[in-house]
Structures are given as C-alpha cells and as structure tokens.
C-alpha cells in the first residue's frame, strides 16, 4: 500500500472527490462550499471539478440544507451536506431529528436516507460560545442517526467514504483543530467500517477512551506517563453510534481502569454513556478503580484564549487523572 502524507482537511476533500467520481448520485451542498471552498477550505477546488450542479452553494438556511438532504436522499440521491459549524445544528435539528432520523422506522422500513451531515466541531479557535461547541451527545441520543468523530487523516478519509456509502443519516463531526494536521493515508481506495474502535496506543495499566482532538492529547499524556512507568492504552472509538463496546470492554478487563476524555461538557456528555456501558458489561468485575471522566467544564466556551483552554481538558488534566487512579 502506497502512503501519502496529507492533512486531515485534504483527507476529507479526497474522500468526497473519490466518492463523487465513483457515484454520480453523490453531491455536496452547503453554505459557501462552492467558489469560497467552504468556511475552512475543505471543498476548495471541488467546484472546478464537479460544477455548480454537484457542488451546490446554498442560502444561509441550515434547516432546509439538512431537510433537503433528507428529501434528496429518500428519493435516490446521496447528498453530503455541510453545516458550517456544528453549533448551527440547532437550526437543522427538526430536519435531522424529527425527519431524517425517523423516516425509516416510522414508515415501516420502506425508506432509506443515505445522507451525510458534515460539520466541524470543538473549541480551540478562540471563537467563543456559538462556534466552539461539542454537541455530539445530543445526536448520539437520537435513534436512527449514526455519529462519527474521526481524529486523524487516515480515519477521516476511510470513515467519510463509509459514511457516504451508508444508507442512513450520518452525522460526521470533523475535528476542526486538526484540519491542518498531517498523517499517512493510503493512496488506494479504502474504507473503515463503522463500529470499529482503534487502539491508538497499546498499554497495560489504564485505558483512556478519547474522542476527537482528545485522542491526540491523550496520546501526548500517555508518553509523559510512560516515563513514570505508567503504560496507558488509548482507544479512539471513531464512531460513537455504532459504538464498539467490545474493544473497550476487552481493554478494561485487561487494565481494570478507565478514564474517558472528551471535549464536550461533562454533564450529559458521551462519557457518561460510555461509563454506564462498561458498568453494565462483564468488565465491571474487573474494574479496580472508579471510572473517571475528564471532560469540558459545564459552561459555554469563553472567548479569552486562556479561559477557553481551561474550559476543556488539556494534556496535564489527562496526566493528572491517570496518576490519580493508577
């Protein structure tokens, strides 16, 4: 397999381009995705290749972007809709939650809704409370949606291709602070199945389950802890729905300790769900310490960069949490 070193953002773009070349039913719509190239430049150059018909600029109307994607999907297209910031999912919520997610079930299994709603999430850009949220827990809660949160260029490409080929509405949360991070990505076509967690670092003493940018911070923390003789296993679930419980349970049985790290507010966050899954599993009897959540504070993301940093977990927070339970 030939590998290329590309950024996360390029990996997203390549996935869309390759799928659009492969299947003419796939198209992109969203605010400023055309000539502007998307607010983060993810779709730069795609208009030139695919034309206005398949790289569609939309008005600033998140509700209809998501809803039209659902309508197009249920009638035979495979839309990729971009929501400029994951925060704006609030405006598209009816289309996504009451319509797209429910159609198949409430119509008795007759409908397929193969749509992808891409959106950059997370803090770290100093953009304050309405452009920095991590709202994945809301979406995880809705049956009928699949929720993907890739952390690396390799994962984002393989998972976006799977998302586009999936026959269900997929919420695809891109980690905006790693858009420019490079990683090795195969040049050949590949897909990553949903529901397959990736053990980013094998370890013996404690399991750290992290999502999005927290995967990178946890790996950094693991290296610091390795110098103290603490061997951390870092697991990236990659898809929150479906969730690879098996890999996590196996790991917790091995280490006996679990720390869950996410950027979203701790209260009602995905970490609580993961903790409960583990408590209900056979791993319960192997827990040798209480499960710990290292998560965002229960506050809106503040503007001042120093405050913003303190609002979400940093490497030191993860290191300290591990030290506390090992």
């Amino acid at each position, binding site marked *: 397999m030939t590998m290329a070193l590309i950024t996360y953002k390029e990996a997203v773009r390549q996935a869309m381009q390759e799928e659009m070349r492969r299947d003419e039913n796939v198209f992109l719509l969203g605010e400023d995705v055309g000539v502007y190239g998307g607010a983060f430049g993810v779709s730069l150059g795609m208009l030139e290749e695919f034309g206005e018909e398949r790289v569609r600029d939309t008005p600033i109307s998140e509700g209809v972007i998501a809803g039209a994607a659902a309508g197009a999907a249920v009638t035979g297209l495979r839309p990729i809709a971009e929501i400029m910031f994951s925060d704006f999912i609030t405006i598209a919520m009816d289309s996504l939650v009451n319509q797209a997610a429910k159609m198949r079930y409430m119509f008795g299994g007759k409908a397929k809704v193969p749509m992808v709603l891409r959106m950059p999430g997370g803090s770290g850009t100093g953009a304050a409370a309405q452009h920095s949220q991590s709202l994945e827990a809301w979406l995880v809660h809705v049956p009928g949606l699949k929720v993907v949160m890739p952390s690396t260029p390799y994962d984002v490409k393989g998972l976006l291709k799977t998302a586009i080929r999936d026959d269900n509405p997929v919420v695809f949360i891109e980690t905006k602070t790693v858009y420019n991070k490079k990683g090795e990505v195969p040049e050949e076509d590949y897909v990553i199945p949903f529901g397959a967690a990736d053990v980013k670092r094998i370890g013996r003493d404690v399991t750290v389950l992290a999502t999005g940018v927290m995967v990178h911070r946890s790996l950094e923390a693991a290296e610091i802890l390795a110098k103290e003789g603490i061997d951390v296993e870092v697991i990236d679930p990659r898809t929150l729905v479906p969730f690879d419980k098996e890999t996590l349970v196996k790991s917790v049985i091995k280490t*006996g300790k679990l720390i869950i790290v996410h950027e979203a507010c701790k209260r009602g966050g995905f970490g609580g769900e993961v903790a409960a899954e583990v408590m209900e599993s056979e791993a*319960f*009897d*192997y*827990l*040798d*310490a209480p499960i710990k959540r290292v998560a965002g504070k229960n506050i809106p993301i503040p503007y001042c960069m120093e405050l913003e940093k303190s609002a979400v977990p940093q490497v030191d927070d993860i290191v300290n949490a591990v030290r*506390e*339970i090992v």
Partner: protein
Amino acid sequence: MATELLMPKLGMTMEEGTIVTWFKKVGDSVAEGEILLEILTDKVNMEVEAPAAGQVLAIIAAEGDIVEVNKPIAYIGQPGEKVESHAAQILKTEEQHTAQVAATAAPVQSAEGIGGKVKASPAAKRIAREEEIDLHAVSPSGPGGRIIAVDVTNYKASPLAQKIAQDKGVDLAEVAGTGIGGKIVKADVESAVAKLGSKTKGARKPLAGMRKVIADHMADAWAAPHVTHNMEVDMSGMVELRKKLIPGIEKRTGVKPSYNDLIIKVVAKALREYQQVINARLHSDGLEICDEVNVGMAVALPNGLVVPVIKNADTLSIEEITKRAKELAMQAKEGKLLPDEMSGGTFTVTNLGMYGIDTFTPIVNAPEVCILGVGQLQDKVVAKDGEMIIQPRMSLSLSFDHRAVDGAQAAEFLRRIKELLEDYLQLI
C-alpha cells in the same frame, strides 16, 4: 509468637535495602544481638542484629533481594512455632487497635465501609469471590482505603511467594495455589518461574543497591561532553621520593605511602593553584567554584566502585594523606564508609595501573568537572640528550567536562601536574 524481622530504615531517605549476606540459615539458633545479616543501602553496608533470641523460623528475602523498609525479611521464634503471614499480623494489630479504641471511646466507624461493608473494587470483589477469600481479612492499599485487586491476589499468597513473584515478575493471578486453602506458596511461584524461565534466555537480576546507584550516576555523567588529554610523566623523582619516605611513615603509621598517595598530594597542590578553573562542580544552575580541595579516590570493590573523599587534601602532608587513604580504602572494602565520607569531592583520581593499563578514558565523576586517570608505572627506554636511557614512566589521562573546562585550561593543569611529579622539590 514469632518475632518479625523487618528491613531496617537506616536513614531519613532510605526506602529500600538489599540483602547482602545471611549469616544464619533457617533452623539456626541465634542469640539476641547476634549479627544475623548484612544489608546494603545506597553504598553503605550495615550489619543487622537479631532482635530476639530463638531459632530462625523463616527467611523470606534472599540474598540479592531488594526489600522496602519496614517489610518483613525473616521470623525468629521458638522451634516448631508457626509463622503467621504479614498481612494477618497487620490485620491482627488493626483489630487490636480497633478493639482498644472501641473499648475506650464512643462507638466508632470501623476502618471498613459504611454498614460493615468492605470497600473493595469490583475486580477485588470478583477475585475474592472466585478464590473464596473473606475480604474482611484483606488489608487495603487502594486510594481511600479501598481493597484493590492486587491486595486480594497478594492475600492468597504467602509473603515469601509474594516476594518471589514480585522479583521474578510473576503475576500471582495466574498462579494456582497448592497450599492449605489454595494458598500460593513458594513452590507454586517457583514452578511458575521455571515455566517462564524456559521461555527466556538467562535470568535477569534487578540492579540493586550500589549497582543501581552506579548505573544511574553513570547515565547522568555520560551526558557531559567528555574530552581526555593524555600525557606521559618521568617518575624517577617520585620513585626516589617514595623510597626516602617509606621508612619514616611506615614506622609512624604502619602503612607505606603508595604512588597514588603521592599523586593525590601533587594533584591537591595543583588544584589549589588552579582552583578557579578545575576545583569546581557543575550544577544545572551554574558552576560552583569550591573553596575546599577534596580529592576523591576510586576504590574498586567486587560489586562496583566507590569514591571515598580525602577532605582538604591540599592541607595534608604526604603522611597524613597516606594514613587517611588507607583508612578509607579499608572501610570501603568492608562496606563501612559513611555517606559523609563519600560526598563533597571536587576532583577524583582513579588508578588502573595495577591492572597493567597504560592509558584510558575515565568518566568525570559528576558534578565534578575533571578526573585524573593514572596508568601503570613501568621502565621505558627514552631518548635523553641524544642517548637512550631507561626511565620509570607513567601515563596520566585527564578527562574533563568540556562544558566547564576548555581544552587549553585542562592541558595547562595537566602540564602542572607533570611538573610537580617530575620535580618534587616544588612540593615543599
């Protein structure tokens, strides 16, 4: 009840000790105060006396083992007496304590959890269930007094088995116990070790005590950029001087001055002269120019190297240096050096001449900045005034930390040593 012998804590900072030698074996009888074993901590060897008279019932830490302070290493008692496990004894003590408190004070919360429940992790509870262990009998080591898995696995093994398992890297959870009530005993761990051993080549011995200190120290020292200058010296004068000094000094002190003692004298004088450059110690926050000239002398021991220090060497006569050097060497060989006698050096002399080594590259004894390596003294043919003559000669190797000392400065210092060695009148 058998008396427990614990690894003694011999200093403020001592956390563990290495068993060097057991002078008694299981079954031997001992008198109270009799030397029972020798232990090593950092670089100091200490003899440990029997705390009670009786028979050695059990030795649970073998020679070479590293044991945490205040952990049991042996039991002494009456012939035929049963040795209770450490854990059980601790529990008993706690129970007694609880009983005492209960008797003297209002009802108190037990050390256990609320309502008499045991505070234990799910993993600890599972193991206890599987092994039919009563968690009330297990002492906790987890945060907040929680019994964690390792406490239970340890509980089901005898202290000796725990010890062996820890040293040999055996996971007790994987070992089946054959003792009473499924207790894991020494033999179980040993057979587990044998199984493990068949998979690996050569047993690994943990670096302990002095070896560990040396390993750490060397790793640190190696970080310094080292340069070594070599220079040959005409030792005719020193041979002559030593011959003259021997009778008097031997008569007064019982020992003869060695060439090394003479070299230390020379070095100490040169150090005083070059104090600002060479008699220094390099720390992370800067170079410390030392007032005292304290010369360390490397002494090789079977299991490593120690460097006792001759303090204020520049103020001592050759005779005083000779006497002090011999004392320190003797103490070193017996492992009786005190920490203070091994610290505070500003320069080190290391001599490999007795092994037939001519020149070598000594490693600076950080935080010192220079070390002098001394080679063998031998007669050599040299050209002098156009003629071949035979002369006793010796090589000196001066290694220096190039962060603190420049090449020319080191060369100048070495040349001064050569001058002093070749013209001992300057010592006066």
